[in-house]
């Protein structure tokens, strides 16, 4: 499979990337690791006129301890996330979720920013960032702005990013000592999740992100509310599907996904709240 022809521009700084986006308007797509975009190009589901390759922007590859939060450059690869000692100490849920992305080859190339900016509800990291209460740092012609993960995923493969903006950093509040669980259910090792659940639990409640339960990554708000009100785990998990709208496809029917969602949320809460 061969992508449709496109112009290719390689940049090595954020400013150059923004200038290229400004010059080409919505004709341009950013290329990071390429593991979300290239498959779409090869299937000709996307045919951008210009690809702006931000792969060489080394300054956006980092995992930094910023006191109350861990700051992660958008071009940090899944491989760097899954092997990070900083994440192991302060955001172990993100490290575990990154280890579940694709396979080793995919994790050697794919980036957190690419995955998040692609906004696929079936991806592991967007739902994980919802559970973590992450914040996206976005840079555009007018400067920088911060967008909460809850406001970032607005539709199927659609995010709050404008065509002239670049996601530069993901900030994850430290969750040192919090309980967590990442549940991914699929039929083959490297597949996307049929349903996935990212859960982080603290003494006061839980935040739960759902993978592949609607057109965007979602929070299991019914369950979160129930946990906060003191419900038992089985009772809280029984409402995990509320507010979701999963599709039916070869992986399973919508009804099956709702069932799986309740089962995986129960397992996730059980694991996340188990004594260490």
């Amino acid at each position, binding site marked *: 499979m061969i*992508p449709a*022809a496109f112009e290719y521009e*390689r940049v090595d700084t954020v400013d150059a990337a923004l200038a290229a986006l400004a010059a080409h308007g919505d004709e341009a797509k950013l290329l990071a690791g390429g593991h979300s975009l290239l*498959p779409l190009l*090869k299937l000709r589901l996307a045919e951008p006129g210009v690809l702006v390759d931000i792969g060489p922007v080394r300054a956006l590859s980092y995992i930094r301890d910023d006191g109350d939060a861990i700051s992660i450059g958008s071009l940090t690869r899944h491989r760097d996330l899954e092997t990070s000692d900083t994440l192991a100490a302060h955001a172990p849920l993100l490290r575990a979720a990154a280890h579940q992305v694709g396979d*080793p*080859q*995919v994790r050697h190339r794919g980036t957190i920013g690419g995955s998040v900016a692609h906004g696929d509800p079936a991806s592991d990291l967007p739902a994980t960032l919802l559970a973590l209460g992450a914040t996206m740092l976005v840079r555009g012609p007018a400067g920088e702005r911060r967008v909460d993960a809850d406001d970032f995923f607005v539709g199927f493969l659609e995010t709050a990013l404008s065509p002239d903006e670049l996601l530069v950093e993901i900030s994850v509040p430290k969750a040192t000592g919090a309980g967590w669980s990442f549940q991914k259910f699929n039929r083959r090792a490297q597949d996307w999740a049929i349903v996935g659940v990212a859960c982080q639990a603290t003494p006061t409640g839980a935040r739960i992100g759902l993978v592949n339960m609607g057109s965007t990554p979602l929070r299991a708000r019914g369950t979160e509310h129930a946990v906060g009100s003191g419900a038992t785990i089985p009772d809280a998990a029984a409402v995990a599907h509320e507010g979701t709208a999963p599709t039916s496809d070869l992986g399973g029917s919508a009804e099956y996904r709702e069932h799986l969602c309740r089962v995986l949320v129960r397992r996730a809460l059980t694991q996340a709240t188990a004594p260490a």
Partner: protein
Amino acid sequence: MDIVLTVNGEERSAAVESRLLLVHFLRETLGLTGTNVGCDTSSCGACTVHVDGESVKSCTMLAVQAHGADIVTIEGLADGERLHPMQAAFRTHHGLQCGYCTPGMVMAAVSLLRENDDPTEAEVREGLEGNLCRCTGYHNIVDAVLAAAKEGAT
């Protein structure tokens, strides 16, 4: 678009179309046909090569993205007539049936041992999750990788 890169230790330069995939550059521009195209959808791993020392699916990378990179294909693994220890282990343990997945499997296995030089059987199986053997000959492949690890192959 002009690119300059190192392939199997040799500097190569070429003018390529932006949309050319790395695997097609290797196979068709350079004639290195050891790297196979299997599924063409980043699933099967038959096209696995090393980019800067790490396994990558060359069907999911543009040749222009490899500008400046150090690429090693299955042709670059052996030292002259002497097989790389991983290749030798695949031969000794008969880690292949039809052989189509073998180049990608070997490249993925070498990359795996660079990251974990003493893997358990479970870690080998998980570490090769990006490579499919349609003959389902995984048993001997896993044996080969474990044997290569024992011999200190990286």
